[in-house]
């Protein structure tokens, strides 16, 4: 059954069947060929209960928030302000890409939305200023992945939902690793571009006057982050309610920018519904597949397999990390999480690791999956903003950042406190 599932998954994906539907089809197949029970009778109930969730409504809300910000011009102004602050570094604008991604991560719950936002405002600059597009686009794809590490994060909400852990604690745990990862991305960029300046483009300098005048353009994003995260920690709102507050504030910002009109509201809503439906089809498919895999005993077999390796906690953890890297080539984000959490997290807890800490480690693996080919949503998002150039540019440009993420995994294993320090102060 395990080979059937693996090859079925890869084969159906290669046929370019929509990812969510592939998960459904696999579930149908396993039920039909391997299960003595009429599992499909439970299908309707699983679909209803997995989408009837007050927690998951944070997904459309955070997507909507991002849509409103892009359409009100906040995204563009943030980019040019950060350009003034960081583009003097070796690598120039590439740093602005990373910094803008980091800022947006603090208001957006999704990596795809973050990468899409930054790609829209940044890619035209690469052309205009004659940057090498490999590292430039790689930095957007990689920087965008921070969207699910720095709070708020849709993926951490789903992790908390599935493992019954505290979402505010997870959010706090993601903050330091997310910022550290952003700094490491910039260090890697500066290192590469010092060694080989042609990898980047012109360094840009601005006067201190320009720098300080640009600060006011950063206020909306800082304000939003403060309100979203602040309302959670002040005990005023649950993470889901904070998403609703975020939507309201972003609409106020848009209103203040005189960007609110029927066209803008309707296209923001349509964009949010489209993205949410796309994500949810994958989430529901993953639920159905997990239901079938557990009911027919595959999960138990896998669990026994992992436990039967008889290795120490660290070795087992490294094997799990390796499995995630490999799976991450083909599956990603929510499907990768929903399909593996029920199998992996119990093992991790048994080994004596912390649930919150593992959530953050898992997020790095998911971030990596977003920028590794062949299935890498962020690669596609960035590519779609630069039509007519080879796709391999983005892939190659991501390699240094994948290596940086691997370093971060090592750091997190050596020093769990990077993730656990902030939640312990709560």
């Amino acid at each position, binding site marked *: 059954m395990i080979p059937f599932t693996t090859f079925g998954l890869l084969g159906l994906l290669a046929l370019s069947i929509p990812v969510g539907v592939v998960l459904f089809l696999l579930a149908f197949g396993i039920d039909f060929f391997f299960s003595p*029970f009429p599992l499909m009778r*439970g299908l309707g109930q699983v679909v209803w*209960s997995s989408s009837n969730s007050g927690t998951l409504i944070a997904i459309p809300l955070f997507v909507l928030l991002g849509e409103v910000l892009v359409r009100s011009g906040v995204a563009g102004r943030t980019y040019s302000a950060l350009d003034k602050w960081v583009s003097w570094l070796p690598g120039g604008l590439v740093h602005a890409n990373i910094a803008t991604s980091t800022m947006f991560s603090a208001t957006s719950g999704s990596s795809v939305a973050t990468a899409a936002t930054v790609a829209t405002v940044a890619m035209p600059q690469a052309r205009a200023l004659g940057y090498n597009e490999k590292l430039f686009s790689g930095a957007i794809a990689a920087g965008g992945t921070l969207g699910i590490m720095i709070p708020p994060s849709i993926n951490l909400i789903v992790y*908390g939902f599935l493992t019954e852990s*505290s979402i505010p*604690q997870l959010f706090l745990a993601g903050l330091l690793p997310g910022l550290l990862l952003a700094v490491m991305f910039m260090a890697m960029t500066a290192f590469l571009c010092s060694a080989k300046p042609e990898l980047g483009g012109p360094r840009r300098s601005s006067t201190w006057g320009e720098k300080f005048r640009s600060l006011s353009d950063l206020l909306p994003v800082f304000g939003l982050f403060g309100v979203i995260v602040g309302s959670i920690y002040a*005990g005023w709102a649950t993470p889901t309610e904070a998403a609703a507050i975020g939507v309201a504030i972003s609409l106020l910002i848009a209103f203040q920018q005189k960007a609110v009109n029927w066209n803008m509201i309707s296209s923001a809503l349509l964009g949010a519904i489209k993205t949410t439906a796309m994500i949810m089809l994958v989430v529901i498919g993953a639920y159905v597949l997990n*239901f079938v895999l*557990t009911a027919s005993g595959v999960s138990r077999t896998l669990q026994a397999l992992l436990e039967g390796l008889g290795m120490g906690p660290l070795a087992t953890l490294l094997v799990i990390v390796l499995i995630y890297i490999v799976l991450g080539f083909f599956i990603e984000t929510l499907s990768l999480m929903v399909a593996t959490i029920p199998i992996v997290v*119990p093992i991790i807890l048994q080994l004596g690791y912390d649930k919150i800490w593992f959530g953050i480690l898992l997020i790095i693996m998911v971030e990596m999956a977003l920028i590794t080919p062949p299935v890498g949503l962020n690669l596609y998002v960035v590519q779609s903003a630069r039509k007519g150039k080879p796709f391999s540019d983005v892939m190659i440009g991501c390699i240094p950042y994948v290596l940086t993420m691997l370093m971060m995994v090592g750091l997190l294993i050596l020093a769990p406190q990077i993730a656990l320090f902030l939640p312990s102060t709560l």
Partner: protein
Amino acid sequence: EEFSVVGSWSSLPLHKQFETPFWTKTLSEVSGGDMTANLTTHDQMGVASGDVFRLLGQGVYDVAMTVGDYAVADSAPLEGLDVPLIATDADTARKMVEAARPMVDDIFRDVFNSKVLAIAPYPPQVVFCNAEVASLDDLKGKKIRASGRMTAKFLEALGAEGVNISFGEVPGSLQRGVIDCAVTGAGSGYNAGWWEVSTHLMTLPLGGWDPVVTAINMDKWNSLSDAQKTTLETAVKEKFEEPAWATAQDALENDIACLTGEGECTYGEARNLVLVRASEADSQKAREVLISKVLPDWAERAGAEWTKRWSETVGQVTGVEIK
């Protein structure tokens, strides 16, 4: 015969100490290898707790067990199995469950197309508070997290406000004051570290005893031979239900000892929550609220026929009359 079995919460003691050994070892031993089981749990399958018995009735698996309270969406009469506060010790709780058993049998046959094999206790649901509480009256005006309709209604009748948040969100919410109190089993609260964020432990079984129903799909049951039926029924009763009840009272005392440091904690480090035992006045008040408000409400939801059956059985045993 190999059964596909869905256990209750994978992390809770009832599953680890009783369900797992029974279904994976004992059953095969007593039947001489004739009956075995493949065990998983609803949380591992990603099945919502309220769907467990619906899917059992449809034959998605053979045997399932979960808290009766989770299934009350489909059957208001089933709420009568777990009325809060009328059983303050395990013996009374057991009498209550046994009195309710014929009703539960009928409900499971008609609503979930399945046959009840056993009803075992979870640790009773007690109240963790991050606020000064000394009596039931102090709960008035507090924001309390409770699961289950009847408990929520009971809290409302006391003048408290029911807040609906997920189990994992409770510690943070207690600490930040989103809620003042939360109801769960004493053992689960200990394991989930709720003692870190609360100050008081009220040991009134405000959430009832959360009896866990074990049931088998009716078609599957009918397909078994008489010998198999007898073996299964006796084994479940003697090797699962009995031992689970036998340890219930001690488990509660031990959990309380571990949480409050009063008495000896046998499984971990003792904590120091302030123990708030129910006074005579509290019990009186609880009964009064139950009889005047909560049970009449329920009687309306469940209908006259079920109310009558309840009064003649559970009501008789516990001395409660619905007006």
